């Protein structure tokens, strides 16, 4: 039980509590803030895995951009966020069952069967992680990279077209 264990537990607790707020809170704005919290937890997990770059990018993109967008959406569609409104639909109980069973299956498999046998690669990190990532993005994964950029462009144009006042 080292410091790392403690840190991990704290971070994952933050993540899951945030997620819980997202799915359980009636007040959508609070749900969004819970999502931000959860994103921070995930960023912390990345940092713990010494992927500092991804941690920062996580904060930048998810907290800085996506959460803002979602909060914007909440604001612009206000009337559904009065506090009395029931936020659960009729099938919430089945959904709960499904989610729990899924977690049961995954948890069983991961905890008791295969997971730790997979950890074969040593801890040989590349000495220049960001450079390595950049290299990979423009050499081996050039095609997916380009496709992603095109996807972003298309999403941009599409969003503008959809949201524009007719």
């Amino acid at each position, binding site marked *: 039980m080292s410091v790392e264990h403690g840190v991990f537990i704290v971070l994952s607790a933050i993540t899951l509590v945030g997620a819980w707020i997202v799915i359980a809170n009636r007040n959508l*704005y609070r749900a969004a803030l819970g999502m931000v919290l959860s994103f921070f937890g995930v960023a912390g997990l990345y940092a713990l895995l010494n992927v*500092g770059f991804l941690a*920062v990018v996580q*904060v930048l993109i998810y907290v800085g951009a996506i*959460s803002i967008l979602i909060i914007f959406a909440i*604001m612009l569609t206000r009337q559904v966020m009065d506090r009395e409104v029931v936020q659960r639909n009729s099938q919430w109980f089945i959904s709960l069952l499904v989610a729990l069973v899924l977690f049961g299956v995954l948890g069983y498999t991961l905890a008791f069967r295969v997971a730790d046998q997979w950890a074969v690669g040593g801890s040989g990190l590349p000495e220049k992680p960001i450079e390595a990532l950049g290299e990979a993005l423009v050499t081996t994964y050039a095609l997916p990279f380009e496709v992603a950029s095109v996807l972003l462009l298309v999403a941009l144009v599409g969003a503008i077209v959809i949201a524009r006042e007719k």
Partner: protein
Amino acid sequence: MNILDDLFVNIGQWWTNLLSDALSLPDGAVTMINGLIGGLILALLGVVMVLILTYMERKVFSRLQDRIGPNRWGPWGIFQAVADAIKMLIKEDIVPDNADRLLFNLAPVLMVIPAVLLYAVLPFGRRMVGSDLNVGALYVVAIGSLTAIAVMTAGWSSNNKYGLLGAFRVIAQLVSYEIPMVLAMASVVLIAGSMSLVKIVESQPIPNAILMPVSFFIYMAAGMAELGRSPFDLLEADSEIVAGYFIEYSGMKFALFFLAEYINMFAIAGVATTLFLSGWNWPILPTWLWFFIKTFAVVFVFIWARGSWPRFRIDHMLNFAWKFLVPLALVNLMVVALVDKLLADAGMWARAGGLLVSNLVIIAVTLGVVAWAARRSRNAKLQAIAGAR
């Protein structure tokens, strides 16, 4: 000089030795204690800076407006800030009806946190940095973007029309100006070949502001906007949306917003110093002294701008971001990348010259385009008037 230069470093070293040798604590504990103390110091530094900056702002501002400014409390009124603080503290703390209490109380704190977090990566001097992240520049941007959420929360939770309007303006402004800011920083990162602020500082004996005035200008403009200070103070435009998102706040919570603004101001100025004014990396004086001198110079420019410019109209603000700064920043980034590649192995001075020349060209072209556009719109207006006649 070296003594002075390494003053704080040596103190820190002595302290660490004290902990580990004299008290013989385990390393983990030492790092933890040092981290806590460092954080504390940085936070306190922020607060102290606020005191200094408020005083400085009042003074400079009044000078710009041909007044004397604070002069009652203490010699040259230097305790004015303390007086302000006390006034804030003893004010009544109001929470409006059916406001979202939790978030209403949370918002000011959320506001301060990112501001203080920025100090963690600022290199105050040689070997004087909270933590030298290898993604420092990105970290600055990421943390900077957190402010938006805090502001949104404040505006929303106080359940006030003006509050919400202010929040919307904040989002629009911050999100819009983040982009040119990042692009300007990107050009610096490109030149330095690293995102670590320390490496960036070490890599610029010549300040980038001289090599890349365009980037510097863009960064300063975007920085002012991010700070939400005039001329970009539409967020709290008293005359339009009475104080915007913190309209309902009073007392200590208001003080926190106040605090956050000035901490941010110093942090942004510090980043500007680090990225464009070659940070502490100048000879003779102690490095940390250089840092503070330059930073205060930048702060002075901020105050100066506030004192001299009227507020933008919101559509002008957005157009300025999207139709002027973003394209300019993009062009600038491309040109810088191109020059950097072309003159990669042509020696430092050649690169510097190439960058400078290319930037000047950019400036010239930009001015030409702007002038042309202005003339066109003016002619259009005139013709419209003539048609109306």
